[in-house]
């Protein structure tokens, strides 16, 4: 069995799982199920990254999206409204959303194909991407985007704290840990 064939099989298998999961995310009637299908999609993406030898991105995907973002989504859903069983949160904008999603999908596919079609990635050997290279690139050529994102996140963090903070005097009276 050729390694390439194995890779192909994996790719298409994972791809199929991702597509099904993604479809279920938008069609399922249960918000929690939707979030769990999203986990499937994101894990599939991570698997694809691994197939592309982008290990760092793959683990980052798992750590951040699965381990944090989806957990927070689930957390929020369960804290607020997450009835077990069928709960129809549909509304009349479903067709509109479908159109928007389709357009977005088309645009992104077109851009990606336009930009990268025909590019051969060297996955093994001298020029294979290494984690070190990612680090070096982030902190050299992409340092400005990196910093801007950091500041944006910091602002979001402070904003969240300000919104969540209660300025009640009782808050201070709590006994320290």
């Amino acid at each position, binding site marked *: *069995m050729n*390694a390439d064939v*194995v*890779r192909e099989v994996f790719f298409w298998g994972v791809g199929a799982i991702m597509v099904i999961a993604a479809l279920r995310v938008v069609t399922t009637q249960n918000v*929690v*199920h939707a979030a*769990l299908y999203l*986990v499937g999609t994101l894990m599939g993406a991570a698997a694809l990254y691994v197939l592309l*030898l982008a*290990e*760092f991105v793959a*683990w*980052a995907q*798992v*750590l951040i999206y*699965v*381990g*944090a973002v*989806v*957990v*927070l989504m*689930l*957390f929020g859903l*369960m*804290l607020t409204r*997450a009835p*077990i*069983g069928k709960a129809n949160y549909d509304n009349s904008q479903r067709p509109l959303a479908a159109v928007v999603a389709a357009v977005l999908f088309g645009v992104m596919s077109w851009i990606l194909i336009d930009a990268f079609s025909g590019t051969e990635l060297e*996955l*093994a050997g001298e020029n*294979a991407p*290494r*984690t070190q290279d990612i680090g070096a690139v982030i902190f050299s050529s992409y340092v400005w985007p990196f910093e801007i994102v950091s500041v944006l996140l910091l602002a979001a963090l402070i904003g969240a704290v300000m919104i969540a903070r209660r300025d009640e005097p009782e808050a201070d009276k*709590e006994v*320290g*840990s």
Partner: protein
Amino acid sequence: MFELNLSDWQILLVKLGLVLAIVPAITLVAGYAEHKVMAHLQHRLGPMYPGGFHGWATLLADGLKFIYKEDIIPAAADRKVFSLAPLAIFVPTVLTVLVLPLDETLVVEELDLGLFYLLAVSSISTIGMLMAGWSSSNKYALIGALRAAAQLIAYELPIVLSAAVAAMLAGTLSLNGIVEAQEWPFVLWPPGIGLIAFLVFFGAGVAELTRPPFDMPVAESEIITGAFTEYSGMRFIFSTFFPEVANMVIISGVATTLFLGGYQPIVPLGFLDAVPGLVWFTLKTAFMVFMLLWIRPTFPRLREDQLQKFAWKFLIPTSLVLILAAGAWVLYAPEGLK
């Protein structure tokens, strides 16, 4: 690196089989140790009957009992999610073992990004907790799951940050590399940074395990067994007992790897090199496990708000400062000291 051939697959399968056999065995040993050590710390004897000699077969008997128990799924539960949740907790636990270097070459898969992989995979089980809690259709379970999620998210940060300190000092994310980069006296060097990072990692690790004194997600006096209230039989084993004990060993192993010099001898004496690294690794991990067992019966359970305060107001700032210090050390420490 990706030259797969048939024999590679076979090796991988054998390795996986070994892991699947050894992890439960180690879990049994650690679980038994937990029973006995905790009992003696509390001036008790612990199990004495099953198996005859000091109750060595207690956990086997327990397991047998759980196998025979009825697997109950509540009528109002979300059956699919309910049955999948133990899997979502159990599988990541086993997956984390794959990268732990037990000896120089004794590792299932030596990954370039071992540390990162470990942290990423172990974060998945949070979803399992949430699934279990939500699908049980039980308020205790839901509250337990929410507590667990809040706690795991909060303590994920100090763990990642303090592990990052170790990675920065070693200059690599590979677990083998981190072990190799450490020199005697492992955790005490560089002065302060290593020890504090170790303590932060350890404290956050205890919380990540949801073990006392950080066991609010399963606080039995408040919410029964938290997210696993409705579980029974084998599902219960695979969702609570097994991951808890296995994770305890794994966290100890990770702490050993990151801070205690992994499979290196405890003191750098020439003749000690003859002892296989696995022995050193086991000894150090056992010591860490003992520390965890020691903490458990000693301290009372914290309150939920105290727990969150401890993470956000103490551990996370501390580890952020540590990262700064570690960076400064790596960049500016005189060459002779490093």
